[in-house]
């Protein structure tokens, strides 16, 4: 997929048009156009407070944009609820891992399959044959995803009790369990050690092959960005300032300025403002 020509011809999975999100007086995301093509890994990078997570939150339906639209597989999903968007095939993870801490790893993963099931109150109470078949399927999908991230040995352990690196992978597995077309990962490598990061990169590139999935991720680790991305989009102060192939971005003057001109640790204030609404 490294060939840019091939990129422009592939189907567009996710597209945002003039996406704008305002919190109070602060424009966290400002007319951002994003195109994610089928089968690629697109990295969204930028200094802290650039509005990357806000883009994710709008795409996944947690926030409603003030202006602009989100299209998924050609369908306008702007303003739809998070649970609907998952069912269309967009699954996400969170920057600060959000598992279900007091439930087992297996139960955590079964959450991903929730949107694929339809058993209701009565079929669950009376254990209809359809409900039982569905339960079996949910458990099997969950189990196979748990094997996929090599965490099956923890299936009966509570999510809060496994190691941090495993929790990251568990969250990715949970997102995968909804059989998504698009996987949206918010800083998947944050907090991982170099070895775990290496494994993660291998895992993600492998996913493209095995699972017919497209990946959109926010990433801070430039090794990861350069190592696995097919396309990189750079944001700063709510705007898209550049995009291109990783090697192009690496030498882009505006990008370098955006990074050097800002203190990386200074983000908290700006970030706090973005969530205060």
């Amino acid at each position, binding site marked *: 997929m490294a060939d840019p020509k091939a990129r422009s011809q592939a189907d567009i999975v996710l597209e945002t048009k003039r996406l704008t999100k305002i919190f109070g007086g602060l424009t966290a995301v400002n007319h951002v156009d994003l195109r994610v093509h089928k089968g690629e890994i697109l990295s969204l990078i930028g200094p802290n407070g650039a509005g990357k997570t806000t883009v994710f939150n709008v795409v996944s339906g*947690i926030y409603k944009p003030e202006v602009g639209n989100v299209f998924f597989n050609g369908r306008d999903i702007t303003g739809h*609820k998070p649970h609907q968007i998952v069912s269309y095939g967009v699954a996400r993870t969170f920057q600060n891992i959000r598992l279900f801490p007091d*439930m087992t790893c297996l139960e955590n993963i079964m959450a991903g399959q929730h949107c694929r099931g339809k058993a209701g109150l009565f079929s669950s109470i009376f254990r209809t044959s359809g409900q039982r078949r569905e339960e079996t399927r949910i458990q099997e999908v969950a189990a196979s995803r748990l*094997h996929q991230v090599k965490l099956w040995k923890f299936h009966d352990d509570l999510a809060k009790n496994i190691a941090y690196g495993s929790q990251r992978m568990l969250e990715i597995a949970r997102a995968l369990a909804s059989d998504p077309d698009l996987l949206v990962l918010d800083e998947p490598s944050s907090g991982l050690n170099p070895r775990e990061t290496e494994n993660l990169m291998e895992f993600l590139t492998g996913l493209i092959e095995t699972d017919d999935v497209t990946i959109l991720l926010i990433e801070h680790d430039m090794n990861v960005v350069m190592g696995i991305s097919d396309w990189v989009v750079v944001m700063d102060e709510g705007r898209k300032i550049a995009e291109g192939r990783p090697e192009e971005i690496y030498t882009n003057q505006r990008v370098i300025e955006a990074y050097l001109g800002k203190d990386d640790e200074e983000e908290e204030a700006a970030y706090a403002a973005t969530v205060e609404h």
Partner: protein
Amino acid sequence: MESIKPSGIKSIATSQRAQILIVIGAFMAYPFFASDYFIDIAFFFGIYALLGLSLNIVLGEVGLFDLGHAGFYAIGAYTTAILNTKFGIPILVLLPISALAAALFAYIVCSPVIHLQGDYLLIVTLGMGEIVRLALINNPFDLTGGPNGVFGIDFPSLGGGLFIDSSIEFYYLIWIIVALSILGLIRLQNSRIGRAWNYIREDETAASANGVDVKNYKLLAFVLGAALAGVAGNVYASKLMCVSPESFTFWESCLMFCIVLIGGMGSIPGVLIGAAFISLFPEIFRPFAMYRMLVFGSAMMLMMMFRPGGFWPRKRGAVEFRSILGAPGRDDG
């Protein structure tokens, strides 16, 4: 390579199965060894167990702070009382009707407030519970009989001149209802719905981002919890033959809250323990007369100090009771 079969359907040990059968046997045999007085105590234990189970859906499974649950209980009891005394509808016919009335009420009043979080939901449910009680006292349309309540409610008729009217019969009635509810609730716990409730309790945002329609599942919990409370109200009304607002105070809601927390959030055996504590403790300490509630209050504080997670917290992983209660007959290896 390990088996890919999930553990959820692990069959439980024979010894646990035996324990459950012993408990059921003990409950069935109890009335033959107890006086009417103690059978009545066990009846109220059953009522509190049912109320605890109903609040456990809302508070234990979904983690919604509901301090107005007595309101749903009251709606069930008064539906039975009014329809029976005014229109002579038989009690057992009113059982599902009372459940529906309470469920409908919950749906209507909870829909606009279901988005409220934590303590705000708590105060709103508390306010609703109080509104119900105050409305009953004020005797709207001359239906509720004001502070005195409604008298002369029938016993449940089984047809052919047979009535549920003795302590033993009421004891069996309530415990059969409790047993059926437990059966249904355990099945729900191990279903897509029960898990969705737990996901919401653990992390609402993550639940939503994983496809759980949070508002709907919260409402479902309220509606189902209210329906069970309505059933408890129906049985309570016909056992006492009268209902009055003072049975449905804020204090009752607090007791239900304590039942769930003393037992352990989301734990069905825990609810039974909590209900036993709430209903039996004051009876056991009756000889201490006016000091018994002092002891009761202290016991509540001590329990939270030493068992803050409840007496029988829900164990995850190894699924409780599951195979007895109708898990699919699979070869689990």
